[in-house]
């Protein structure tokens, strides 16, 4: 590999790493701001203009707190837990294609950490490793509540991984490739985006992504009333900070993966026309690079929307009970995603028709509508006038 390519590649990887951390940092701020705005409050506004230095203040507070390791805890595993959570969270953004490619002289470097041809499998492997961080941390704390919280987190993550994987299979069948870049390139054209070809798969994937990130309405691993705190009950200082931070990094990567898999990644309507116009006016190097930059900006716009959506949902929906969570995962999402796979396969076999899963959506809407019409009307409660 040429030195220039190596340099550009390492710059891209560093940039991806840095941007992931930066976005995760400011997600904590955004979370508090969004929460405040959704609840008619203003949110943090004391540290710096608009409270923009709040994440730094929070991190400073975290660092200066006492780093406590319980006497009966397994010391090394106790330290390993948050490290593993952080590591796995950071690893998965490596395969996401953030843009088309950067041209430099005769080289063409894709804006992506590593372009492995099993990108989806890599993401899944890393995401499943994330359970270890939680499980090891909870077990090493030597606290029954931590262990219970960790078990809850692990069982939740494992159950929802099944549906998550199944919902993607339909996309893999349509694309015929595991490479995320290939999946993105396949979605050229607005109505080729997988959210239009796979509406049901998208809903299932989104739900499972919420569950995988331990976000509301599936934030059961953390619970004050039942579990004292959750798997990180015994953690303090920056170890706790790592766990919380890993959650935000996971949120960013899952938003990125949702945008990549279902919303066309760095593709946007009339991308090729814009690209050609830029190449014509600015030359094949500069024009191409600027077009790549626009694509990357569009992808980040999608990612930010989904991060906002995560927060929006968090402050809208109350959490599920644990049995409801398991029922939803095993009895609803997994059968639905299998049905989704079967229908997509049938559609593909029958004349490469990609929009077959709309059938499920239409049937569901019709069933719901007829059910709603047939259901006995509740008598409106009359409030006595005082």
């Amino acid at each position, binding site marked *: 590999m040429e030195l220039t390519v190596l340099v550009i590649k390492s710059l891209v990887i560093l940039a991806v790493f840095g941007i992931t951390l930066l976005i995760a940092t400011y997600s904590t701020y955004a979370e508090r701001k*969004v929460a405040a*705005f*959704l*609840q*008619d*409050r*203003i949110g943090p*506004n004391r540290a710096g203009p608009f409270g923009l230095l709040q994440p730094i203040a929070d991190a400073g507070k975290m660092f200066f707190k006492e780093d406590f390791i319980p006497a009966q805890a397994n010391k090394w595993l106790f330290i390993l837990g948050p490290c593993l959570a952080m590591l796995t969270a950071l690893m998965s953004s490596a395969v996401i294609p953030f843009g088309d490619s950067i041209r430099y002289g005769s080289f063409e470097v894709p804006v992506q950490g590593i372009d492995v041809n099993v990108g989806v499998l890599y993401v899944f492997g890393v995401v499943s490793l994330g359970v270890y961080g939680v499980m090891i941390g909870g077990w090493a704390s030597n606290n029954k509540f931590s262990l219970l919280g960790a078990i809850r987190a692990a069982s939740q993550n494992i159950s929802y991984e099944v549906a998550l994987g199944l919902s993607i299979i339909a996309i893999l069948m349509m694309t015929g490739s595991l490479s995320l870049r290939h999946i993105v390139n396949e979605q050229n054209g607005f109505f080729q985006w997988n959210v239009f070809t796979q509406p049901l798969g998208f*809903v299932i994937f989104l739900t499972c992504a919420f569950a995988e990130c331990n976000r509301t309405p599936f934030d059961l691993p953390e619970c004050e009333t039942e579990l004292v705190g959750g798997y990180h009950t015994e953690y303090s200082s920056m170890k706790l900070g790592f766990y919380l931070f890993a959650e935000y990094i996971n949120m960013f990567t899952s938003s990125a993966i949702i945008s990549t898999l279902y919303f066309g990644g760095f593709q946007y309507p009339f991308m090729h026309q814009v690209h050609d116009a830029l190449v014509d006016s600015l030359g094949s190097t500069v024009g191409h690079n600027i077009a790549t930059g626009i694509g990357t900006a569009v992808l980040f716009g999608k990612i930010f929307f989904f991060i906002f959506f995560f927060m*929006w*949902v968090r*402050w*809208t*929906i109350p959490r599920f009970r644990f049995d409801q969570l398991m029922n939803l995962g095993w009895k609803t999402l997994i059968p639905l995603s299998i049905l989704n796979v079967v229908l997509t396969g049938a559609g593909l076999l029958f004349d490469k028709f990609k929009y077959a899963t709309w059938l499920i959506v239409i049937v*569901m809407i019709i*069933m*719901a*509508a007829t*059910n*709603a019409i047939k*259901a006995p009307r509740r008598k409106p409660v009359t409030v006595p006038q005082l």
Partner: protein
Amino acid sequence: MTLAERMYLPAILGGLGITIRHFFMKKPTIQYPEVKRYLGPIFRGHHVLKRDEQGRERCTACGLCAVACPAEAISMVAAERKKGEEALYREEKYAAVYEINMLRCIFCGLCEEACPKQAVYLRHDRMVPVFTERDQVIYGKDRLVEKLDDRYIRNNPDAQATPTEPTLSRSVG
């Protein structure tokens, strides 16, 4: 639950609609230390020992406020007015020391009601500032007696006209 209800999604979308409406609503927050609400003309805040129109202290150290005080926050030492002090004290007897313990005071306003000379008032436009040291807690006459250049008028027409009062945002100390 009907099937439509069990699909959750319509209800969730409805809920998201409600919350996003709140996202764009005007926030009722008042930026407290910078902006303060007008608390009304009968708010009971900082104590003041009034002077009369000629600038003489009204307090005659009768002790009724101390008796009325349910928190026993007020203590005083009485003294007799000497010759030549008529411009300072209105009555023949006056309070040489008048102290209010702000840690004990509950701002009930009973001292105000008990006072026969209309000497002690709880200002409606000023709060007792936050204290961090114990020796800041006991307010003597130096901090209680009304300053001649800063007379307190209960029926301040400006105060009623403005929602946030300029005197409240000024630092007191």
